[in-house]
């Protein structure tokens, strides 16, 4: 398998990373090298093998639906690029 330049640009868009034509070309070479390594997996017959998502076979814990955190909004918003009146500011999305 090898990725086309168009595919590289499409994935970059999916990942919301701006990519120039030059970068896309370099990236294409690197990704295809990496996928050559990854392709070794395809030779293995894994029929009937349960996919392993996690190292420990534990289920999600539940807790009481109760407030456990204190309000630290000011501290958390202090590290944001742009805030106003307790809100995070982004470019206008609704005309």
């Amino acid at each position, binding site marked *: 398998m090898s990725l086309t330049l168009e595919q590289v640009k499409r994935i970059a868009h999916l990942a919301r990373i701006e990519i120039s034509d030059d970068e896309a070309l370099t990236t294409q070479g690197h990704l295809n090298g990496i996928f050559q*390594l990854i392709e070794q997996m395809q030779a293995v017959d894994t029929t009937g093998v349960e996919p392993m998502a996690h190292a420990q076979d534990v289920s999600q814990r539940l807790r009481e639906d109760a407030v456990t955190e204190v309000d630290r909004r000011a501290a958390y918003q202090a590290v944001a690029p*742009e805030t106003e009146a307790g809100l995070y500011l982004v470019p206008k999305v609704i005309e």
Partner: protein
Amino acid sequence: MINKSLKELAQALAAKQISSVELSTLFLDRIERLNPDINAFVTVDREKTLAMARAADARIAAGTAGPLTGIPIAQKDIFCAEGWTTTCGSKMLANFVSPYDATVIRKMHSEAGMVSLGKTNMDEFAMGSSNETSFFGQVKNPWDRTRVPGGSSGGSAAAVAARLAPAATGTDTGGSIRQPAALCNLTGLKPTYGVVSRYGMIAFASSLDQGGPMAASAEDCALLLNTMVGFDERDSTSLDRPAEDYARDLDKPLNGLRIGLPKEFFGEGCDAEVMAAVRAAIAEYEKLGATCVEVSLPNSHLSVPAYYVIAPAEASSNLSRFDGVRYGYRAPDYGNLDDMYMKTRAQGFGAEVKRRILIGAYVLSHGYYDAYYLQAQRIRRLIANDFVEAFKSCDVIMGPTSPSTAFKLGEKAADPVQMYLSDIYTIAVNLAGLPGMSIPCGFVGGLPVGLQLVGNYFAESQLLNVAHRYQQATDWHARRPGMID
């Protein structure tokens, strides 16, 4: 004083031979003098460190000190620490001052009374095996400053090797504690997945990431691990287990210990002199009463391919949070919201991080999910099952940590695949979620060689025992680089 073990330092503090302020100042002064040559630390804050040291001295004076109260430690810059810049080696977080503590940091500061000397350099978002992907520049290996310290916990490894700190924290997703420990002549331990809380540890691949200690000896690692572990309801995969003292079995004799030698780790692909040092270490273990059995990990050659699907998939999801809205970098010029995301992420992430995000986005995308992501997870199961089978005939698995000694700065930087293959012996352990260590076992051309120990689930105490007995019989771990005066 700089070469003393944590136990000796604790005794000196308890006996009032030295105060925590004096001890911390000693290391801060070394950092000031030597860090410009090594670049192991990215953030040092003398005032914060000394404030913690004064608080520790007060605890010691009041008789409420714990075993490591007042002992200085370096923190990998992946752990959020309140009021400290926490960069994860990235431009994306270059100005991020954390508003909260990671659980590991909280336990070390508030519970144990340890004193943080600063934050150590690392591969960007822990993605790398040489520390060369850091936004804050290369870290130099104290054993040879033209060579890499390993990665991603390269700054922590270099800091401890150069005795800029008595010990450090690290994290290990595919070998990031063990490989730099091997390359810098340290003892490093990656615990069983779920034992150390991941809360506040900036996520790379959440099903693999695990924090652990890096220090000069197994004994030091045991004492550090005691301060790091414990159930944490803020980490959804944290395991609720009874507390244990990881130093309790250090001195147990090794008579009857069965060492499993995977034939796949002793074939081609490893430097011959590295292999000779590993074999000599195993011969030493036989003298200590252990016996060797051949075991097989028949799917281990698939660990690197499976890892480079699973880890990037999880990373692409985890790193989607860096969007220039709630924290971190935002591009200075942009048009609409999408453009802001695209430019922020293009400018804020380095090349290796972008590569892994793209791999992840691809393997998770429609039409490729089954062929790549699910196939990788099935292979992960086969790899984990190989270990289950192997541990039926042995107690601990041994082999090389890394196929070579420290390589030259720049040597593998242009070829991602070559870089990925330097973790060929460590990655399977993360996929299975097992505990693993690297301990010093010799030198090739003046550069350290690491012996990897892999234990069964929750066998940290046994691994530390196996490492400690070797360190009682040998002095490889006590060797220091020439730059230490």
